[in-house]
């Protein structure tokens, strides 16, 4: 378990490097609320994106994004609600994104799921 946490940490770092290169501002890393966590919260102009970072060694068993289950999505939604109200972000456009890392490729997709 400890090992997995380490791997996750490593790829979350890679992901934030990638996003910064693409002009996203990192607002939060591993933002937690009530034991629920979202990996990254980023901003560009009017848009705030809650990002889940998912690493898979190979995509033989499906793309990384397929391994984000409903429970995780529900958690992210809940954090989104809390984050909006605590930071008063009502006029911002809130999206949900995913960074899939597999075979050394990084793929960022916004609008991964919707409310």
């Amino acid at each position, binding site marked *: 378990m400890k090992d997995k946490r380490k791997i996750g940490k490593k790829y979350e770092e890679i992901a934030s490097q990638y996003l910064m290169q693409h002009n996203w501002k990192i607002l939060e890393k591993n933002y937690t609320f009530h034991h629920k966590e979202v990996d990254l919260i980023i901003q560009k102009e*009017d*848009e705030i994106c809650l990002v889940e970072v998912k690493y898979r060694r190979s995509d033989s068993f499906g793309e990384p994004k397929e391994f984000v289950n409903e429970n995780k999505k529900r958690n992210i939604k809940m954090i*989104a609600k809390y984050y*909006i109200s605590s930071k008063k972000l*009502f*006029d*911002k*456009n*809130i*999206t*949900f994104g995913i960074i899939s890392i597999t075979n050394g490729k990084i793929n960022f997709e*916004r*609008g991964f799921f*919707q*409310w």
Partner: protein
Amino acid sequence: MVTKLFSSSIEGLDSRGVEVEVDLSNGLTAFNLVGLPDSAVKESKERVRTAIQSSGFIFPLRRITVNLAPADIRKEGSSYDLPIALGILIENGMLEPPRKKYLIAGELSLNGELRKLSGGISLALLAREMKADGIIIPEKNANECAVIDGVTVYSFESLFEVIQFLKGDIEKSEVKVSYEKYLEKLNKYTTDFSDVKGQYLVKRAIEIAISGGHNVLMIGPPGAGKSMLAKRILTIMPDMTLDEAIKVTRIHSVSGLVNNEIVSERPFRNPHSSISKIGLLGGGTYPRPGEISLAHRGVLFLDEFPGFNKDAIEGLREPLENGAITISRSKQSITFPANFILVAAMNPCPCGYYNDPTHECRCSISEIQRYRKKISGPIMDRIDIHIDVQPVPVEDLQKKKAGENSKEIKERIENVRKIQRLRYKEEQFSENGDIADRELERYCKVSVQSEQLLADAMRLYKLSARSYKKILKIARTIADMDSSENIKENHLSEALNYRILDREI
């Protein structure tokens, strides 16, 4: 800014204008659809998203709100896909709002193609009423809508094509179709009246029925040719006028039976006796037309009449009398037209050979009574012509000379219909079978001798008041077939002949 586009919803047979409002705003990304949509409309979210993406456009990551107004009428079906998709693209700045007022409808497939919608012709009629500048519809509904005069029809294969059209990148000429083109395609049947050997009396009765729009009941043993004759009625039906064709197409279109063309052939509906009451008469929580409405301006053929559900048969009373059926449900009440010629066929008894010259009937009196009781008196009374079909004698069967063919009969019928149309041009009705009670005396004048004959028959056969009227109407048709201005005694006695079973049952 809110984008507003126009579409329609079906209510019974009529279309009602619906405004599709689309708004994009900041906030949690979501796609909300409001305005009393049913599940097919709600599902349009998924179709619209994928169709926009596969047409090469970006689906906005914003908070999308779609409102279908007025919000208090229920929206069903999938025809809102296209206006919703266009509204989203306009809101997202990928497309200019259309400068003209178009009525837009169409279902999207996932790859952005447009699919057929039901009720296209009602949409075109609404566009004319609203004085819209045009309608934007799927290619597969083009011909159906284009027969309506005064409506500019633009039809498209895909969402992408619609976008190009609205941008002005491609020119699209309006679809034009002439009704005459359809009539030319008609009159090609594989069956013909001359296929039926013998049965001259029955053929005559059918000709009278079709000429004047009367209902017929054929009673006869199995194999006598009842069904065979009924199936050939289609080949002698007079052509429909454009006005009639539009009305019939509306009913068929709402039921989703129209395949990219106007219904130009008179309907011949032949439901099986296992049909439910609602299937026959129409109904459902949100009323839909039944077989009797689909047979509007055509023929409803009910083979093995007593085999039908008793409730279904009794439900025919109102439409047989009024030419329409009103379906009332808690949410709405809708009147569907149902002016059809009823052609029913039955055996005289369960074994089928009662009164047959060649076979012995094996049924007991009580069995026969039970069988006949399935058709109640009031229904019998509403059927104008009762005809006894006897088996074909072997001499007739072996006759080489074919009888009259359908074309000749049809020509005669067209003539008789023309006489009637001319006579009733200022009336609500156009057929002898539908003469209003108040006008009966005016149009069905009989001489003093004929009146005496009728009075005698009434007393002898104990005919009902409705029978009396029906006899006059049939006599009127027979006189018209004879090109006679007045109803003569021989016309009347022939008409009387067709009510003879009133006495027997």
